[in-house]
Structure formats: structure tokens, C-alpha cells
């Protein structure tokens, strides 16, 4: 039978992108700005991810943390061999990129609503395009609050962006472990929710961070009256292909490379409550 489509190989072959800028955000986190060194990829939406290849080392899924024209911006934390190699990539070096993969933050659907953006740690990276999109069309939305948690002050991402955003919308920051000289709040990001100043009944929330933080945040938001189907999470599992055929990123019925990473809380909640699912 010849009833199947013929796939081009382009889906599995990383496209070469050159590192244009490299910025050290924290001791273990780097933001790379990449430009195509050949045929580029289709446009990425906020929340979508790329598979980034350090040639000879391996490939990892990394969310888009910004864009500039055709340039892709990715923020990467060095936690393994591949991410270490990517973080070490100097301007001029070529890395491989595949994508865009996965679902997007549907920012347009929040038009006319209050918006809560809640980030934990490097979870701020995939949410940065959301904030930029909100600010680019500020009048389309109601009150907007950005709540950011980090383990320590020196692990806070994008301090410049946070200051710029704070001139337009409410930005609250909290750290688990304050360091000497820290004048801000200390505690968990859920403690910032009462300070958000948004109307829970008409709020849309975008959450990204460690799973335990997102679960606690979502529960706290629901307790305050935010509708479950207006709470969105970005979930993470192992990924090898991004294309729905490696099987690694399953979370119950979801293939997170295809049905995620951005998932609505009503879908995510029963799955996250099952141990080792």
C-alpha cells in the first residue's frame, strides 16, 4: 500500500544558526541570540520551543524567550552536558535549531481580561514573549501583574526587563533565600498573589516554573476565584524528537511536544496529581 505521505528529512535535520549575542544572566544561565546561517525556520509563537543541537554533544528542548526579526532568543540553564555546551557557545559559533514545536500561550484570548503572569526561576524565560506581547498592545488588556519568584537574588533573570516592565504594569519579585543586601520580599511566589491587584473573576493566568510551584500557584489562584479554564501552565517532560514520535514526553494522554508545553489547568491538574505518571 502506498497510502502514506513522504516526509522530507528537513524535520529531523537541525538548521544551522549562528550565535550573534551571548549574555550571562546568572552563574549558570545564558541567553543566546541566534540568526540563521542558512535557511531559517518558520516564525515561533510565544510558548513554543525549539530543539537546540550542540553538534556532537546532543539536543535539548528550549523554549523561545524572545525574538528580534528572524532572530531567535533562547535562555538556557546549564544542567547537563548539552546545556553546558550551549551555554558555552561564543558569538560566531554555529548551533543547530529545529522547530517551532508545541502549543502557544494564547495571549490574544486574554484581550479584555486582567492578566497574571507567574514565573518561578527559569520559568520566566518562556513567559517573557507573553509580557512583551501584552505590553506591545497594552490597552487591549485590563490590569496586568507579573509575579516572579527565584531561589536567590543572584538567580533573578532579566533584571533590566523587570525594571522596564514595572514602568507599565505591576511587577512583584520574591526570593526563597534572601542574601545580604536584599531589600525585597522573601518567601514563595504564591505569597505575591494577594499583591497582584487584578480582579480574580476576570483574570487570565499564565504559569511557568517548577511543577510544585505551578500546582501551588494554580490552587491559590482558584481559591481566590480565578476560573480554572483561564489558568495556563507550561509543562516539561523528556523530549527527543519534538515531532510526536519518540514517545518520551507523554503525560497520560498528552504528548507534550504536540499537546503542550502550554496546557490548560483543567487538563493538567488531574495528571499532575498522579505520582510517577
Amino acid at each position: 500500500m502506498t497510502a502514506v505521505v513522504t516526509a522530507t528529512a528537513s524535520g529531523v535535520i537541525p538548521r544551522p544558526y549562528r550565535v550573534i549575542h551571548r549574555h550571562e544572566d546568572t552563574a549558570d544561565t545564558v541567553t543566546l541570540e541566534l540568526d540563521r546561517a542558512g535557511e531559517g525556520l518558520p516564525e515561533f509563537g510565544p510558548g513554543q520551543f525549539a530543539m537546540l543541537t550542540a553538534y556532537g554533544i546532543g539536543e535539548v528542548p528550549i523554549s523561545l524567550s524572545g525574538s528580534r526579526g528572524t532572530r531567535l532568543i533562547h535562555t538556557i540553564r546549564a544542567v547537563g552536558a548539552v546545556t553546558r555546551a550551549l551555554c558555552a557557545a561564543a558569538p560566531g559559533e554555529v548551533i543547530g535549531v529545529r522547530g517551532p514545536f508545541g502549543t502557544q500561550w494564547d495571549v490574544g484570548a486574554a484581550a479584555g481580561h486582567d492578566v497574571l503572569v507567574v514565573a518561578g526561576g527559569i520559568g520566566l524565560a518562556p513567559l517573557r514573549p507573553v509580557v512583551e506581547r501584552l505590553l506591545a498592545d497594552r490597552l487591549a488588556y485590563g490590569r496586568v501583574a507579573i509575579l516572579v519568584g527565584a531561589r536567590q537574588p543572584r538567580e533573578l533573570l532579566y533584571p533590566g526587563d523587570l525594571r522596564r516592565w514595572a514602568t507599565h504594569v505591576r511587577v512583584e519579585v520574591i526570593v526563597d533565600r534572601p542574601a545580604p543586601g536584599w531589600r525585597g520580599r522573601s518567601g514563595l511566589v504564591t505569597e505575591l498573589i494577594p499583591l497582584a491587584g487584578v480582579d480574580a473573576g476576570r483574570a487570565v493566568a499564565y504559569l511557568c516554573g517548577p511543577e510544585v510551584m505551578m500546582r501551588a500557584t494554580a490552587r491559590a489562584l482558584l481559591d481566590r476565584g480565578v476560573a480554572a479554564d483561564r489558568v495556563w501552565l507550561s509543562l516539561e517532560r523528556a523530549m527527543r524528537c519534538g515531532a510526536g514520535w519518540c514517545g518520551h514526553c507523554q503525560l497520560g494522554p498528552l504528548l507534550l511536544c504536540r499537546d503542550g508545553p502550554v496546557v490548560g489547568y483543567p487538563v493538567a491538574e488531574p495528571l499532575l496529581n498522579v505520582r510517577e505518571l
Partner: protein
Amino acid sequence: MRTGDTAQLIDMTGLEALFGALHERDYTIVGPTVRDGTVTMAELETAAELPWGWAADTGPGHYRLRRRDDDAGFAHCAGPQSVKTFLHPPRARLWSADRTPDGVTTTGPEPPTKRYALVGVHPCDVAALAVLDRVLAHGEHPDPVYTARRDGTLVVTAECTEPGETCFCASMGTGPAATGGYDLALTELLDGGHRFLVRAGSPAGADLLERLPARPASPVDVAAADTAVQQAAATMPRRMPDGPLPELIAANRESPHWADVASRCLTCGNCTMVCPTCFCVSTTDVTDLTGEHAERWRQWDSCFSVDFSYVHGGPVRASGASRYRQWISHKLGTWHEQFGMSGCVGCGRCIAWCPAGIDITREAAALAGEPS
């Protein structure tokens, strides 16, 4: 069914002619043959290599070849591997890359050198091809390795007339009759002369059939074929529990039964490797020692590996119980939500080739609260 004016009859000469016609068309023929004490799928030159007069006795964790007292060539149940091995190879190079002065040059998966005609594939395994098609070819990002092999592959199914102890295709709706997905369908008839009822399932199959020394099948032949296949369905010893399996699985995520299975499960991964629909793979990047040449390879992986679910911080599914739950839940339950169909075709390989003899139908029955 087998009625109608399209059913033809061929004898052994006709089967040899089929092999000849396929060779003429440059197909590499893959079919069942006796090898390493099993009936397994392998590349064949002639119809004489088919497992004439052989069958297999299977049971949980058990497989033995058996001499038949007739010459049947397709009356064996599922062997150690399905045709997955040929279309979704255990190892494949996705690309190789070399550094150049202005970047990196990447070339990607080599086109297959062979075009396969899969002959003597039982209906359960034809159904499995439809499952792999859905997963690997019909998503938003089709897999180039699979599609390049699958495209142009010809399927000659052999209806099942003698199910094994571990078979349960009838309860999965995938057999023993051939209902689609084939170019030609054979039904082997032994009483009254060794012969094969042949039906075309596609223009390519009809074209082939026209070139074979065939004669129209008589109503007696057609009735004999119907009876043989119906009998296979009626005598099939195993079945899945009744009722919708996805709901059964979803309702049992926290069942204590998973720990019971885990006490018997070796988490060796054999069930996934022999499953004709298990598609999971991992990738590995390699370099030569100069570091200037890199390649990405992929190989079959399994949800029974701890590393399979590894994310930064550790594996999601560390316990054996969670890994077995993942496998059977995916196969019988969440596959429906992901791909709109079951991941299980009832071939029974996971039962026969599980060294611990774990039986997916019994475990599902236990979840359903059926007495075992």
C-alpha cells in the same frame, strides 16, 4: 468477506509466480521462514523458504516450533518480531554533519536501498502497520525514516486460520480476517488440495493478481475460506475484557494492582521491543575522535528504561510499577486520545516473549475486576 467476483484461486505454482512477479518488480520480499528455532520475518528469495509444515506452540513466556502433520505455510502465530523491524529499523542514522568554514553541512537520513513486499503478514500485523502509519506518517511532523520505507511497500496478507495460545486479535477487531490495509490477501486452504484464495485490495494488488496463473474461486472454495477464518476467531483462547479500555485504564491509575504486576515484572523491555506498534525511540549523538564529524543516531527505546523519563532532577517513572502502568496505559488507553485508535492489535507477542510470562489480557481483566 471473501465472496464476490474478485476472489481467485492459485496453487503452489501461483505462489511461486507471485514471488517471481515481485522480484521482477524489484521488490525485496520479506516473509515468514524458519530461523533460529522460530518462524520469523526475513528476506526471502523463493516461496520454498516459507515455513511449510511448521507451526509454533506459544504460551506466556513460551515459544516452541512444532512440526505439523500437514504442509501449511501460514498456520503459525506471531513470531519473535513483526515487520516493524524492516520499516521502523532498530537503529537508524538521522543525519551526519561536518564543520565547514562558514558553518555546518548536514546530510540526512539515507534513502532506503530496498523496496519491500511484505508477504504472509497476518492481519494483526497489517493492523499494526496502520497504527504505525498513524503515529509516524500522519502527524504534523512525519518521520522521514519510516515514511521513506513505508512508501511503496507492498503488503500481501495471509489470513489467520490457526491462532496461537497467546492470540487475541478477534477481541481487538484486528483479525483473524483481513479487512483492509493490504494489496493482496491470501487464505490458505488445505483440504481438497493445497491452494490459496486470493483477493486484491488495491490497484497494485489487482495488477499483480492479473499476472498470476489464477482461476476464479468456486463458491465451495470461498465457503471453505470463510469457515477456516471463522473457526480461527471462534477458537481464539484469549480476549481483552469487554467494555471501553481507555476508561478502564483511566479509572485505575492508582490501582494497587500495579504493584502486583511490578512484583513479577523484570522491567526488561521485551514486551515493548516485540510489540508491532511500540514506536518509541531515543537519539544519541556521536562524534569521531577528531570531533569534526558528528552524527545523530536513533534506536528503539522503551518506557521500561528508567532513563526514558529522565528530566533534570531525576526520572519521572522510577518504580517498576509506574513503568508497567505507563506501558499498558498507553497501549490500551491513552493511545486512543493521542492517535484515535488502540495501540494494541492482539498479536500476543508481549505475552509469549515476556520472560516472566506476564499476560496483558489477564492484567487488563484484573483491572476490570474479572475473575482470572
